[in-house]
């Protein structure tokens, strides 16, 4: 029986066994050398504090059957946005205390002759107590730590009339801001 006629299994078997024995001998006699590479992965996410609100005007339209009221003072909810509620969304990804602040000053007529004091603008957050603006920045919400995505706060507005307000238009630019307290 020649090599040509020797069954394939037989030929591979003797050669394979020989190779395996040689590789084993090499593995035992020569120390193994494994190549590894380590990459340092750094994730740098900046500390971020962000707020967003719909682009709308908080409006009070005082007219119709409900004005003048049976008695003063009387409170009127905002007619815009819908339901008199403004959604204010806040995002914070850092530790520490952050606060949401609202500053409303006096409403003034275009000519500046008539004024509705800021104290007659009322607001409440998430259905809480009604509070009055006072012309200075007021903390309306505080939280420790980061938000889970965007945190939405419902801020409702109302206007108190004392009966002394002249007819006409009044306008003011209020400021809503978020601030993170410095850590020590």
């Amino acid at each position, binding site marked *: 029986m020649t090599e040509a006629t020797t069954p394939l299994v037989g030929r591979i078997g003797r050669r394979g066994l020989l190779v395996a024995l040689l590789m084993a001998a090499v593995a035992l006699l020569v120390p193994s050398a494994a190549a590894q590479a380590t990459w340092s992965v750094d994730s740098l996410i900046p500390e971020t504090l962000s707020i967003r609100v719909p682009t709308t005007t908080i409006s*009070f339209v005082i007219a*119709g059957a409900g004005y003048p009221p049976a008695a003063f003072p009387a409170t009127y909810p905002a007619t815009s946005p819908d339901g008199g509620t403004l959604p204010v969304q806040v995002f914070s990804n850092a530790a520490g205390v952050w606060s949401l602040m609202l500053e409303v000053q006096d409403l003034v007529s275009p000519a500046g002759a008539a004024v509705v004091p800021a104290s007659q603008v009322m607001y409440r957050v998430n259905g809480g107590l009604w509070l009055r603006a006072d012309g200075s920045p007021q903390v309306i919400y505080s939280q420790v730590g980061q938000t889970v995505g965007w945190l939405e706060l419902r801020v409702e507005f109302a206007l108190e009339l004392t009966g002394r307000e*002249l*007819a006409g*238009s009044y306008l003011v630019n209020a*400021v809503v801001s978020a601030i993170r307290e410095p850590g020590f």
Partner: protein
Amino acid sequence: MSGHARPRSGAALPARRLSALAAMALTACAGVAFGQAMSTGTDHAALTLSIGAEVAQQVSLSLPVSTLTFDLVGGGAAADGADCVIGATVTDTAVVGPALGPTTLAPAGVTFALDGAAVTFTGGDRAAAGTTPGDQREVCFKDFTLTAFSNVPGWQLSVDRLPGPGGRGIERLYVGAACPPVGGGGFYLLREGDSAPLVLAPSRDACRDVRVVVGVRPAGEGGGMSTASLRYTLLAPGDAFGVAPR
């Protein structure tokens, strides 16, 4: 034949898609999404909110009673809660008002004055309860508070006499008004179809609750029911004001 292999046409993004992606990225950095305003910072962010109020021009009147009755039957008008006064004269006397002001009358010489919440009468003596309404110097009064509202500077309250709901018309009907807490003076004698100015308010806060005094002369009335209707009108200047009757 070129020896350089050219990249397949699908290997790179089309230029249009690249520019669109770049535009979206730029928008995100600027912090403005459609319909929202956003502000971002490391430790501070602020946005401006517009707050506007539109107060419509409005005037309003409120009467506490719709009918004023002088019951002269039995014990006389004094028994009906009216203030009856026996004046000094039988005729009406003129009351000169302030400069350029209207001239009013003092029925039987009687004028009125406000004293806080009370109305006092001068120029006569109070008629005792049970007095027979035959003295021509007797004048009987009733008063009420008319609430006026106007959010426009300067307004005027006037009164018109209209035909009554039934019976004869009241022969002599007097109407006067003043703004609390002080004020007073004479009255207007209103016959059917007459009108008179009651209060001129130069500013909104000059007068809110108007005290109206209505008087009749019992001796001049015949038997049975005598009636009259009084219409009060509040007018304010300005364009497009609305009237909210109560």
